[in-house]
């Protein structure tokens, strides 16, 4: 599988020259000869689902935005890749910036946006330099600007550097941040597709989603859908970390099983140890046990195994991992990143991590695990945005799947 990452293998893949020599910007040229609505239709037909985590059909988003009569429209790339375990956008941002620019330019043309922003994670300073240079080069070569490729299409692209808040990966908080406000999620509706950046129709897609666009346009929806599964078509980037022999970013068709990813592509568990657990899609997805290896990694099948595809950031744990500590560390992350707007998340997640802390330090009480479940229940579905829910389902996942170990019962380490 070599679509999203294909250019990376060419020398000077970050340079415009390298990108073009490996076939870049052909799709943009083709797209500009198509009707914008045809591109939107093609994307909708392809069944491409957003790669940021929620898996919302990209074509649907584009259709709604392009039908909204309000103008101007804006395009935003969510490059605030900040969840522990997720680093799948990094290779595109750092090694293949023109793929993103091309994808965004095509998308902008399709929905009728003249201005786009790449909201880049504050901890990706290298990517910032690379992207900014790529944008300058693209302007010079006529892939961005007032008259792109001489075809009368105008699109300007800017990089906006985040300040290090995970919440700004939530699309409405991202818009607030982009508008110079405090990064806090907005009430929905109105949804960004209708009232987003500066209260105008705004399409926000993930880096990887945009990276899919040039290929999709090049080969068409029919060929694109041959990759992956019917409900989750297309290639997917998986970032694998933890106790495997070959951690890294892998491009594989949607629906590849966990077993194949861990044992074939990543070379199995480190030091020949036994697999204990996997977090399949970044730390906001529930942990899975070792007996779920045959689960296909896609939007439809993971929920059947009690988890979610999320961003596709796998974290693999071997038999020596102390899952209580893992759970604590993840909860502390959410506590630290809670924006503070709504009560259940701000107060509840902190409470969860305080309880886990005392459990880990041996001061836990017998009723603590039950308490964790109850607090999680009081958070789940009651928060303003998905951040608090994420923390709650993660804790529930740990307790439900590894209850003896979470309770610290003797002999549970196995």
């Amino acid at each position: 599988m070599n679509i999203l990452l294909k250019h990376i293998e060419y020398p000077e893949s970050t340079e415009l020259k390298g990108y073009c020599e490996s076939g870049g910007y052909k799709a943009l040229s083709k797209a500009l000869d198509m009707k914008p609505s045809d591109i939107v239709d093609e994307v909708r037909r392809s069944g491409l689902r957003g790669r940021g985590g929620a898996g919302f059909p990209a074509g649907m988003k584009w259709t709604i935005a392009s039908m909204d009569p309000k103008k101007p429209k804006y395009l935003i790339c969510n490059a605030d890749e900040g969840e522990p375990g997720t680093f799948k956008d990094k290779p595109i941002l750092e090694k293949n910036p023109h793929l993103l620019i091309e994808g965004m330019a095509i998308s902008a043309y399709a929905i009728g946006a003249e201005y786009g922003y790449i909201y880049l994670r504050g901890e990706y300073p290298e990517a910032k330099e690379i992207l900014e240079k790529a944008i300058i080069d693209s302007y010079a070569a006529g892939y961005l600007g007032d008259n792109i490729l001489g075809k009368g299409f105008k699109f300007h692209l800017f990089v906006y550097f985040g300040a290090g808040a995970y919440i700004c990966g939530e699309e409405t908080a991202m818009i607030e941040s982009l508008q110079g406000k405090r990064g806090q999620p907005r009430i929905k509706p109105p949804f960004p597709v209708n009232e987003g950046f500066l209260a105008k129709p705004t399409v926000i897609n993930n880096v990887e989603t945009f990276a899919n666009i040039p290929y999709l346009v090049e080969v068409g929806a029919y060929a694109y859908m041959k990759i992956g599964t019917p409900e989750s078509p297309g290639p997917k980037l998986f970032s694998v970390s933890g106790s495997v022999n070959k951690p890294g970013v892998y491009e594989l068709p949607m629906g590849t099983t966990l077993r194949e990813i861990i044992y074939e592509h990543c070379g199995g568990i480190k030091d020949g140890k036994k697999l204990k657990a996997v977090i399949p899609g970044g730390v906001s997805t529930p942990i899975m046990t070792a007996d779920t290896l045959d689960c296909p990694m896609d939007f439809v099948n993971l929920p059947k195994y009690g988890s979610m595809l999320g961003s596709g950031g796998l974290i693999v744990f071997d038999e020596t991992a102390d899952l209580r500590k893992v759970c604590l560390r993840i909860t502390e992350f959410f506590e630290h990143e809670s924006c503070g707007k709504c009560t259940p998340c701000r107060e509840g997640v902190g409470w969860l991590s305080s309880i886990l802390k005392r459990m880990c330090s041996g001061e836990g009480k017998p009723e603590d695990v039950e308490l964790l479940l109850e607090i999680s229940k009081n958070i789940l579905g009651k928060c303003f945005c998905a951040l608090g829910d994420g923390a709650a389902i993660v804790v529930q996942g740990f307790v439900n799947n590894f209850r003896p170990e979470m309770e610290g019962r003797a002999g549970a380490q196995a």
Partner: protein
Amino acid sequence: MNLVELTINGKTVKAAKGATILQAALKNGIYIPNLCYDRRLSPYGGCRMCVVEVEGQKGLSAACSTQIREGMVVFTETPVVAKSRKAVLELLLLHHPLDCPVCDKAGECKLQDMAYKYGSTSNRFSASRKDEPERLDSPVVERNPNRCILCGLCVRICQDHQGVGAINFIGRGFKTKISPAFEETLDCEFCGQCIDVCPVGALGSKTYRFMSRVWYMNEEEMICPYCGCGCTTNLSVRQGKIIRGRGKEGVGINDGDLCGKGRYGFDYIYAENRLKTPMIRKEGNLVRASWDEALKYVAERMGSIIEKHGPASVGAIGSQRCSIEDNFMLQKFMREAVGTDNIDSAARFGYAKAHKAMEKSFGSDFMPIGWEAPLNAKFLLVIESDITSAMPVWGLNFILARNNGAHLAVADSKETKLVRNSSQWIRLVPGTGVALLNGMMKVIIDEGLYDKEKAQGIQNFSALESSLKDYTPAAVSAITGVSEDEIRNLAREYSSAKSRLVAMTSGASENIKSLNTMLAGANLVMLLGDSPDTLQIPAEFSNTLGMWSAGVRPAEQGKEMQEMLYAKDASLKALYIMGENPIVTFHDVAAVENTLKGMELLVVQDIFLTDTAKMADVVLPACSWAEKDGTFMSAAGAVQKIRKIVKETGEAIPDWEIFVRLSKAMGKDLGLNSVAEISAQVSEKLSTLGKNDLKLSFNPAAYELIENSSSEFPMLLVTANILQHSGALSSLSRNLDSVVSDAYLELSPADAEKYKIINESYVKVISKRGEILLKAIISNEVPEKTVFVPIHFAHAKVNTLTYPAVNGGIPLVPVRIEPA
């Protein structure tokens, strides 16, 4: 309006389309607990207390942020909902300090009430409480971050409603706190709106700190004694003393909004110089006297002056702060017992100009403002006025209009609060508003943008047209400093707006506008064929309009204020002053002092021993607004009751009663002996107001300065009220003085450099009338060649420099400044 029908708790209710469940419920008398909702703000959805069950909806919905749909079925109090609310409360109470015994909010704390309603939680977790220091470092507002539940109401009311943005969230997650930038000391306009919206005790009134438990107080609804808004302030009284003011939803025209004066300014009645007994000057000193003695003395002296010099040698000054009844009795006493028509007030330098402009232009004798007028216009043009400072709560409607999408253009030399909240700032040279209006009209006429049919039918149209010939964009640009394009665009955009409004204030202390500015405003209104009520000029103080309407102004040949106090030939022998302090608030203090000294009899009836009272032959103690019954008429024309809510001070009696007694002492009976009797007669008089037919007429209005700057006096002194004060009255409030207690001189950084003046050092300000010392504040808010000084403060003697003006010229004061 489109109504949506839905069912809440089995009851069918209707609410406007687009409303949220919470709004629909509250409107229909169904309470849903909430901690972060305020009717004035957009939904926030943070506290999660307002969750409800919606049929067919998975999970719970936040009522504050879920829009209603036709046929929606909502349940607000189910076991599931109660459990969820209890869980939220448990989370909030985890870290909230349970210091209710020493929290001033206890008893009216929403968190406390909700915890009581949804039941206690077992203490399942002993979390560490926040341990932030209390912040008591700013005036009147105290902050206790530990009690904060981060509902964000204070942040949003300050930013979105009040237009200030003094505080915001800092930090993230559990460590979030509310603070001014960089955790500095809070330095804002101190309106205190944040205190009223705080559901817990995180924000409090410092002046009320540890004063009382709420259940020991009676709360009284009272009309605010300060500006013309006529807000209702809720005053809490304990053991006969007012100790707190606050706004309350649904109460008064202000519907809960208050400025700092309305919230904190009540304590002027506890000033140390309150008069407790009558006083008579004996051997050069004022000494205590009994009422009988004092009234007899006044009656005799007054009688002999009338006998010797005739009744026309007696004059009287009424008060914009006294009730309608008080003022009515003053003029009745003067007209019937004394026989003089020399009756006027400080409004001569303020509201009288607006009245004269309305009378000349529209033929109207009564033009109150419309409280909601700003909300009905798509283009609001404000001429050299900070309405958010002069009329703070009405001013909020201008900000609201802009927030709702109207265009708010503010022509001002100073960067005021209204400017900061405007859509367009036309920065002009101070005092040139009239030229700007003329320039706009010139463009409108030249480009044919006016309502030809209507305008040409109005008297004097050709006179107006020819009077504008010199106000070409180029000429106006030279006068105002506004570019020709901006003048043209303003004229075009204003005249093409769907609905329009011109607004300005008419304060007695303001010297950048004059009768001509107001006439020009009226001309613009008529030129575009707009209704006269699209010119909005509010009466300045709590009862300016009431006083004016009660007849405190010459009716026939009587002397107006400038003749009484500033005429060279001192024809007045006796002056009776009620509730006014000319030595401080009137222009050209030296002239006033001279006139007062020349009186054979000076009677001052006041609640304080003012600087003017100190010069009097007789001083009579009156009751303050909270110590008597009566009525005020707001700038919007509403006659509202004030009530006796606290005991009178010493032997003070209401002003009206003084006239009842005095007239009897003079052997005349005015025939009215109670507020009810007076009110009955006053209402008869008031009922005729505003009934006459309008008669429109253009009045050409030129731009002219009465005094020009010169090489000797190169700068222009601008005077005005500031937001925290109102006339000289508010300077007697300790609470308000803790915010601003002294006059100052604002000047631009360039002028500071030029005249070598260091920030906060003292400067000498010299006009041809005198000199004063003021502390300098270097500020970008004022333009070059201009200095700004607030009046209010007796000791600053700012009016040493100024001079009175009642007609068309702009009374700016040329001054020179030098380091002191």
